[in-house]
């Protein structure tokens, strides 16, 4: 069996769906973070496989950007999370609903 780009795309779609589903159904902010990372990396996978398929470097370059932004996002996000946990002793996003209109 030859593993073609289509398989990678399929895998990426599955990983993205798992991530999205996780965000929708999990309450723990830390787990939601992990799901976000999962979705980001699913997108990375599509970029790399598309780049390889087309024979350009554009995909890989884009992935580097995504990785950098994701790293920065994790730093900020985790810092917020730690500070929320210190104050509220919970990481459940449903209890952090003060911004409701």
């Amino acid at each position, binding site marked *: 069996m030859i593993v073609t780009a289509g398989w990678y795309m399929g895998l990426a779609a599955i990983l993205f769906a798992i991530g999205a589903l996780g*965000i929708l159904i999990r309450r723990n902010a830390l787990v939601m973070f992990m799901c976000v990372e999962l979705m980001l990396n699913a997108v990375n996978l599509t970029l790399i496989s598309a780049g390889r398929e087309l024979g350009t470097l554009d995909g890989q370059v884009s992935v580097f950007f995504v990785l950098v932004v994701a790293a920065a996002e994790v730093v900020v996000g985790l810092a917020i999370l730690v500070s929320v946990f210190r104050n509220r002793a919970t990481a459940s*996003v449903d209890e*952090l609903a003060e911004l409701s*209109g």
Partner: protein
Amino acid sequence: MNAIIDSVWLVIALPLAGAVGLHFGGRRLGEPMAGYVATALIGAAFAVAAIAAVPFIQGGEQATHIMLWEWMPSLGANLEIQWDSLSALMTLIVTGVGTLIHLYSVGYMHGDERFHRFFVDLNLFAASMLTLVLAGNFAMLFLGWELVGLCSYLLVSFWYTRPSAAAAGKKAFIVNRIGDVGFMVGLMVVFASFGTLSYTGVLDRAGDVLSTGTATAVGLLFLVGAAGKSAQIPLYVWLPDAMEGPTPVSALIHAATMVTAGVYVIARSAPIYTLAPTAGMVVATVGALTAIWAASIAIAQNDIKKVLAYSTISQLGYMFIAVGIGAYTAAMFHLMTHAFFKGLLFLGSGSVIHAMDDEQDMRKLGGLFRAMPVTALTMLIGTLAISGIVPLAGFWSKDEILASAFGMGGYGYALWLVGLIAALLTAFYMTRQWVMVFLGESRWEDGVHPHESPRSMTVPLLVLAVLSLVGGLVNTPFRFTLEHFLAPAFEGISQIHPPEGWTSFLILAGLSLLAAVIGVASGYLVYRRPTESWARFQDQLGGLWTQWENAYNIDDLYGALLVAPGKRATEVAAFTFDTRVIDGAATGVAALVRRIGGAIQPLQSGFVRNYAALFLIGTVAVVAWLVIGVWF
């Protein structure tokens, strides 16, 4: 000689310096020093003007132009002085009579807590009026025109704590504004036609540039402005109310100087009116109607100052007849003599009011001759002068106007007849006033001790009385001194003159004198008798008397026709349009935004997972739309 003419700007600068200086230092100078300083400054202005006017007396001297500051040269709107015999005559009247009235005010305003403020305003008025008459272009004239309006407002409502005085000031200002609009539009037409506002650019070229239609339009628009400032029909209603101001103000502004500005403007614009005989006839008609209209009202007034106010309106009507028919010298002559005798009469009435603890109702005066002989005798001279008794000032000037109207022929005969009847009424009401105030039994209330006024007040009275006696002799059929004096200013204008020959002069003058004598005699005979017979006389006139006493209810008419609809419109604008439409639009938009916000508010649940789900749905929708777009 040129040096003094070049420094004629001092005539404006001196009273202006007085106004500024007294504004800051007047309180420190105190009473009566502040008044004397103001008097000295306007007196100095008179001296400068008198010396600078000498070349005109020698005769033939042309206009001198002095550029003070190039303000807007492209419009011809600069601070520039035109010193010719016409502006010289006006300047001498304003500063001369002004000096006397300033001096008089020192005594009259004695004890007023805003003594120095009064002289600030008075000096400012003098500077403004001199700006008006010395201007070398219409822009500067308009500057002075508006400034005298402002000073009139300030001085009419000088005792602003009295609601009636505050209201009178507002009325004077607003009615004048109506006229000013007409004048301003007239100036715009002038500028559109000539491309400049300077006298030399406009008046010297009027014949080449203006068509008859444009000249008529300008003439009528100037008339609107002049009717406002000079209190002619239909804009005269502010002047009787303006009597709320202190009496020296009434004498200076509302008799001798400011109200004559309209006459001056028309005389100055003579080249334009020469091109528009129709406009001139309208001016003369307005003047004739005003003369007889106001004279009839003056007959039945009981307030000593109201009589004089309506008399002023009536006399200004004569001047309008003169400038309307093109007898400019006669108009300026009457303007001058009127400044003398009406200034005198107002100051005399002020002297009476001063002595009687502010009593102005002539029914409560009477028998004052013994108590204040100087005032009584000087006012008698003023009364006879305005009545037209030979050889006093008013006889010569009024007769020249009437004779000129007669000399014009045609429509002039009607103007002459109306003027003659008005002259009879004038003699009647002025004699009535003098007799009611100074003769008969004393009708004043207990506790009033009338006394002759202080010397600072009687000296101006005496000077003006002398001027009223002999002032008319400057332009008699025996010797036309004023005519020669003014001739260079009206060069190239064909003026209307009285008919030639001594016979016609004697007949016309005789008729005028007859009218005056009938008026004086009947006024004396009716009002010399006790009060009960006054009532009988008034009853004989019946409804007419009531009409006159209520000034034909013009104020009520204007109130119903103009003021009430204006108020109604304002109310609609303020309380209906503003609250419903303007505020409604604003609150309506706000309510709409609030509504929409309320409707979509539940979307902001505060649950991160909700947002994520919406985000996902949105993304999927956008992607799906793109994909479908690509495929189909």
